[in-house]
């Protein structure tokens, strides 16, 4: 089982891939979800955003057997908080098995 640092690195990388931005663009400025949609050429609306999160969640399930439930997030949520939500889910022992 990967440690927390590896998981965080994986989630950061997958987020960036799925939204079509670099990790630096995504996390250095701690973009809000609304700003993320505007900045990414691949995203038009919150459906695209949820799909990007879902792809990250599916990757965690396939690669590590970890299940993540996606909460409802408002568009002013900063991406650091989204990362924290994902980390909370994957490090919660009661939700680990997929």
């Amino acid at each position, binding site marked *: 089982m990967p440690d927390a640092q590896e998981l965080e690195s994986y989630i950061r990388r997958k987020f960036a891939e799925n939204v079509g931005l670099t990790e630096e663009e995504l996390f250095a400025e701690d973009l809000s979800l609304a700003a993320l949609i505007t900045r990414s050429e691949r995203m038009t609306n919150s*459906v695209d955003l949820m799909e990007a999160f879902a792809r990250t969640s599916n990757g965690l399930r396939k690669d590590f057997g970890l299940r993540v439930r*996606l909460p409802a997030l408002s568009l002013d949520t900063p991406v650091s908080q989204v990362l924290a939500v994902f980390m909370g889910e994957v490090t919660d022992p009661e939700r680990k098995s997929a």
Partner: protein
Amino acid sequence: MHFEESSLTLRVRPNDLDTLGHVNNATTLEYLEAGRWAWLERQGLTRGGTVVAVVSRVEVDYRREIPPGDVVVHTELESPAADELEEDGLNYRARFRQRVFLAADGPVAVEALVSVAFLDARERSLASLQQFLAAARAPAAPVEDPRP
């Protein structure tokens, strides 16, 4: 998960035609919508569930004019692909590839890519494709007997 392509034959109605005597471009969108309903039926999925599909994007290429007569609407789920769609996975978007043919063996007149998202009708919040499928496969709620 695998879904079959569907095929729906429609008769062009007189009021579908514009002043040039061919099907109006906006009417073609109705043909595409009918094609997607036929796709749902082909999979044994029912409408009226608690999670509904809503169109989020439409890309249409008009190849030929559609004269009076029959058209055949082919509809297939392009995305997520079979290996990307799992019962315990999450997908929030689906994309259909649709083609409208002039009669069963005629040339293609319209090609379209239609993206849909899913909404929980009660919460009015985004839902996943898996939630939509679960709701569409659930048996319909029994109709209450109105008699006292």
